[in-house]
């Protein structure tokens, strides 16, 4: 049994890292907004989905005018990522302005409900637009990178099997890393980042120190949503097929990842996302071997969430979270 698990480990790690990287960047969006407003922005999964659709639309457009053939794929990728993140960033800011800011002083539950409402609105809006074209809302993204790479893990140690991955795996990983490092630097090293941290600690005092709290909150939504939109593009490129409902399950899991890492903590969200992705993939590939065919791959989510519960029992603030006294 053990040898068997080790054998498939390289492939499981590769697949788990891809999914985990996607979870991690979406989790960043949840965690940033929660850190500042203590609001769970359930519409964030739908912002991710909108990003996937905007990116796909741009790619389809560019293919139509012959751009894809004329320019190297990396240039196209950067262009699509930039346009999409600005668009979804503005979308996120708009949602905050329309749905959350007027309710900021009311109870937390009310904003939670508007967040859920926004998420339904976005889902059906995107579905409506997509269905206009051919009456079918499942959309295929044009492939920007093609090709497969094999890793001969067996030459490292004979107990491993060889693994293969698509080139997009590297793209997802590199872009995800860049985004995460960029965010780290922005939050910790810049003036705006400092303002964000100040507002997260105490908005009232921060406003006394001549920080424009509304602007900082808008900026937080912009950055979180831009990251979510960029992840949507990566997701569409890697999996090749999107529909307006991808944001729901992925958003839920990314939120879980944020809780696992300690909600409000940026590094925690990254770690939680990667961990959840790998755990899930590991469970899907090995559960039936471990349990002797009693539980199959369909119980992978049960397995991943059982681990979440275990972590929260022993460390309720999450893996990286700090236990803070309740703000009065």
């Amino acid at each position, binding site marked *: 049994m053990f040898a*068997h698990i080790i*054998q*498939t480990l390289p*492939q*499981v790690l590769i*697949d788990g890292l*891809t*999914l985990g990287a996607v979870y991690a960047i979406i989790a960043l969006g949840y965690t940033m907004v929660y850190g500042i407003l203590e609001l769970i922005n359930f519409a964030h999964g739908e912002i991710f989905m909108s990003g996937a659709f905007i990116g796909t639309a741009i790619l389809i457009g560019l293919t139509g005018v012959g751009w894809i053939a004329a320019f190297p794929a990396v240039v196209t990728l950067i262009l699509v990522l930039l346009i999409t993140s600005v668009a979804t960033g503005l979308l996120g800011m708009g949602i905050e302005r329309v749905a959350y800011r007027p309710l900021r002083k009311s109870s937390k539950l009310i904003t939670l409900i508007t967040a859920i409402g926004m998420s339904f609105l976005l889902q059906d809006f995107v*579905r409506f637009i997509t*269905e206009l074209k051919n*009456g*079918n*809302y*499942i959309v*295929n993204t044009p492939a920007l990178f093609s090709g*497969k790479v094999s890793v001969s893990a067996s030459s490292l140690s004979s107990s491993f*099997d060889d693994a*293969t991955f*698509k080139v997009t795996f590297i793209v997802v990983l590199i872009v995800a890393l860049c985004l995460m490092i960029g965010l780290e630097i922005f939050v910790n090293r810049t003036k705006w980042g400092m303002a964000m941290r100040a507002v997260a600690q105490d908005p009232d005092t921060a406003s006394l120190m001549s920080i424009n709290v509304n602007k900082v909150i808008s900026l937080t939504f912009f950055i979180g949503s831009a990251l979510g939109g960029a992840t949507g593009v990566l*997701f569409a490129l890697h*999996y*090749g*097929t*999107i*529909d307006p*409902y*991808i944001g*729901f*399950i992925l958003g839920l899991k990314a939120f879980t990842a944020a809780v696992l890492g300690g909600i409000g903590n940026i590094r925690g969200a990254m770690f939680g996302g990667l961990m959840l992705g790998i755990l*899930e*993939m*590991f*469970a*899907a*590939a090995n559960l*039936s071997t471990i349990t002797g065919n009693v539980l*199959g*791959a*369909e119980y*992978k*989510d049960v397995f991943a969430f059982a681990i979440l519960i275990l972590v929260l029992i022993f460390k309720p603030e999450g893996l990286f979270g700090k236990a803070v006294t309740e703000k009065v």
Partner: protein
Amino acid sequence: MLSKKMLSILATTVLSVGFVAGCGSNSTSGEDKGSNVIKIATQSPLSGGSATLGEAIKLGAQLALDEEKDTFEKLGYKLQLVPYDDQGDPKKGVANAQLIGSDKAVYGVIGHLNSGVTIPSSETYEKYSIPMISPASTATDVTDRKLKTVNRIVARDDFQGPAGAEYAVKELKAKNIFVIQDKTAYGQGLADAFKTAAEKEGAKIVGFEGITVGEKDFNGVLNQVSKEKPDLVYFGGLYAEGGLLIKQARDKGITAKFMGGDGLDSSTLVDIAGDAVKDTYLTSVAGDASKTQFAKDYEKKFNKKVESYSVYGYDSMKVMLQGIQKAIEDNDKKLPSHEAVRDAVRGIKEYKGELTQVGFDEKGDNKYAKIFIYKFDAPSYPAKLEGEISQ
């Protein structure tokens, strides 16, 4: 203060009384006018993941209804199609069924696509004695409950699964088979039936795993597949997941043949899987109608290509209308009761449809239903017909 409250209560009362009165007068005037209108409802998913198939059923039924309009006009009745969107959701299907039941002018239902929706909704039709003909529901429980209103013109799952298994083992010479299912009533039922039959035929089942509908990453399960190196992977489920599963399997370098049930029978499968769809087999309860006269009419009228179930929607509607016509003629051209229509529809024994012959047995199953085997040689839809198996 008190008077203000009284005023508001008064205002609300007046408003609601007016509203109720308005509703009442509306419905009575509707019934007066519609005494010689015969409505046939369609229930299929017009939105959601299986909208392609649901729309095909509706359009097929509409074409049949339009063709028969003149015949009924001569009898003094006006035919009217009322399409409902069940969203592939049992709750929505039952809610629609209640609406259909409350409309006395509805004499028949064409639908549903999904067995999981057909089963609960048909309990409601039974209550109102509205005959239903399903153009697509294959689960055994649809007719095994022996309801008087429930009929279908396609084959049953306990025939589709074994037919697939027979073909896989005898014709494709598959020895090691990996089975994946999507944990729905349809997918699991089909996969179970396939597994049992394949084992009986002498093949070895090297894995039986489930996936979750709505997810996009199936690499975990596929890692198990690539480890077991089967000759054939059988998938019990629908095209949205099936397409991704096939694509991701080929990306992983899995060369095994793929096989699935009628849930994969859609042009969207080809859109999603692209080139990877080669070497995929599917058993379908739907035959190839692309060369019939029906297909030409359909394309001309709706400017859309026929889907697998278009012709079954069409044939179901024709059978339904024949039953209604017979009930009217037996009743001296007066409007028959719902019970009479129900029995007339079940009583149809020999009807030559556009694609399939229809004759209902005592449970409502079609005696002439067949299973068709298709293979994708190229990424184009429909697939090539490889063979057919009769009951």
